[in-house]
């Protein structure tokens, strides 16, 4: 099992629990620090946008009763945490009896699908480019092209998405503006539906990949330079190994390990960035759920989706942390 000790796994899991608990407590406490309450402010926001709301007093009281806002704070907190543990996220305020879990559940596969596909792409492309940048046999023009493509790294995904929409959806009319698949198509395991999903997903995925891969290119290049000075590289060369074999089996394999740690550190930013990209494309993922909930002032949905985002991020980090010692048995995690 390499460096994966029970103590290490327990500590990581502890941090995972701490993260989720702390973040969801902040989400619970901060809204209650201010005068008034969520329901009250929701109703007043509603009447701001929709004009006078009839019987608003009664509505507020009814909602308060329904959501138990008249109970003491610790009872509310206990109920809230208990609900989160059983993944019960409450009921949508705007689409009233629909549970938040159902709304999120419909969007989640789209977000996770987009996330995993782009993760594979940017991790592969980024590391490939980084390896090529440091390799002596890479043609000069390729190095220039790779360096130039790194400009995207500093741009947030949402801005990249806007530019891609403008270029490829508006100007050249190659890709669709919004959506996840063709209107009128029924989700099914057919080739037609799949190709539609890929066609509609290209620009959103491209926005995420373009702005993210450079991060790994930079890291990989640095690691490759470090590995290049190692004795076993010289030995491999002296043995007369083919340059590509040497690059792949000797250099890349060793250089890629720290990249996985880097992935754990950045995953939160990437998830947040993807949410915005989804919002820009009206992609059926969590991004659109959040945008719609904000428009409808649907507080429970906003809270629920935020909790799920926190959960996704923390879980990804936990998985990466646990995988890492398995891939690299040299790493022994000491307590301090």
């Amino acid at each position, binding site marked *: 099992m390499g460096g994966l000790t029970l103590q290490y796994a327990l500590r990581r899991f502890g*941090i*995972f629990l*701490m*993260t989720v608990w*702390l*973040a969801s407590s*902040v*989400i619970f406490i*901060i*809204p209650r620090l*201010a005068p008034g309450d*969520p329901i009250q*402010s929701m109703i007043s926001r509603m009447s701001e946008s929709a004009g006078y709301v009839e019987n608003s007093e009664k509505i507020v009281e009814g909602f308060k009763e329904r959501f138990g806002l008249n109970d003491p704070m610790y009872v509310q907190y206990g109920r809230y945490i208990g609900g989160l543990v059983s993944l019960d996220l409450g009921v949508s305020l705007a689409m009233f009896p629909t549970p938040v879990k159902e709304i999120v559940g419909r969007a989640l596969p789209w977000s996770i699908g987009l996330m995993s596909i782009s993760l594979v792409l940017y991790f592969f492309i980024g590391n490939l480019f980084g390896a090529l940048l440091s390799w002596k046999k890479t043609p000069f023009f390729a190095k220039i092209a790779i360096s130039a493509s790194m*400009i995207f*790294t*500093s*741009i*947030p995904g*949402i*801005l990249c998405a*806007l*530019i891609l*929409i*403008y270029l490829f*959806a*508006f100007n050249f009319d190659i890709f669709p*503006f919004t959506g996840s698949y063709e209107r009128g198509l029924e989700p099914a395991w057919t080739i037609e539906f799949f190709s539609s999903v890929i066609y509609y997903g290209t620009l959103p995925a491209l926005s995420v990949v373009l702005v993210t891969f450079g991060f790994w290119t930079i890291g990989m290049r640095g690691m490759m*330079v470090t590995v290049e000075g190692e004795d076993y590289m010289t030995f491999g060369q002296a043995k007369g190994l083919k340059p590509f074999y040497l690059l792949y089996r000797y250099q890349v394999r060793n250089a890629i390990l720290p990249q996985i740690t880097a992935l754990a*550190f950045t995953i*939160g*930013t990437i*998830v*947040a*960035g993807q*949410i*915005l990209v989804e*919002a*820009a494309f009206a992609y059926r993922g969590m991004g659109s759920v*959040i*945008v719609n*909930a*904000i*428009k409808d*002032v649907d*507080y429970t949905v*906003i*809270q629920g*989706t*935020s*909790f799920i*985002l*926190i959960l996704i*991020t*923390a879980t990804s*980090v936990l998985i990466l942390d646990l995988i890492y010692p398995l891939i690299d048995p040299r790493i022994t995690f000491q307590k301090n």
Partner: protein
Amino acid sequence: MLKRKSISNPWLNTPLVCGALVIGLLLSSTLIGNIFWDTELAATRSAPLNLPPYGFENMRKQEGVIEHPLGTTNSGRDMLAVMLVGTPATMSIGLIAAGIGMLIGIILGFTSGFYGGLWDDFVRLMADTTTTIPALAVLIVVQSLFRVEVNTMAAMIALFAWPGPTRYIRAQVLTMRESGYVKMAKLSGAPERDIMFKEMLPNLIPYLAASFIGNTSGAILTAIGLEVLGLGPTRMPTLGVTIFFSLEAAAILRDMWWWWGLPTLTLILIFMGLLMINVGLDEVSNPRLRKASK
């Protein structure tokens, strides 16, 4: 050749100078513009609607006018005024958030590294935990209820900007604590505060600067995220808020490129400038990079 390089001032490297130029030009031009241009025009209904920039035509064949050289929005905001107000506002969110985050980081990093013990364990646990929390997710909830304005928003973003500096400073303090000059200072009876801030802190300045810049762009990124989702400050047309309004009005479809394009372009310049400064500062604090780069 090699000799000249080692003498030259490390603070004058190309990326740092270029980045500082980009950010400096952007800030100074908006500040100068604030003097010469009426920024009241950034309010709604202060100009004709949907005009293109001067010298261009919009989809309805209207020509741009010199009174509104960068065009107007669908609610009659003058784009030049919006950019002049929005650019410094967006930058200040980043700077305030990074500043507060850095301050917390310095205090926590020094105290936990210097004193160790239970306090150190606590700070480390909090830092490990906070890095994993996606700031955007928490702030969406807060902002959807309160709608705070620019400065409060910056302060809230700062609550997620301290773990980076804290961790680094703590690690550095741990190594510095054992070094000769710190032991010497301790022996000669210097107060602990002086040891921390007069002996140790100056060593960290290049890194702290790089981390400050990194946090600035991170904070701007979070702010943009909130704003584009429609949760920006209500009274200030920051760049993200402007992009949100343009997307709401389908500005891309209506070919109103000046409306979404100008703030997007400015933001890209800001982010690229900050990245270049960061790369430059890395070269200052890490001399090995200087050799590798050229």
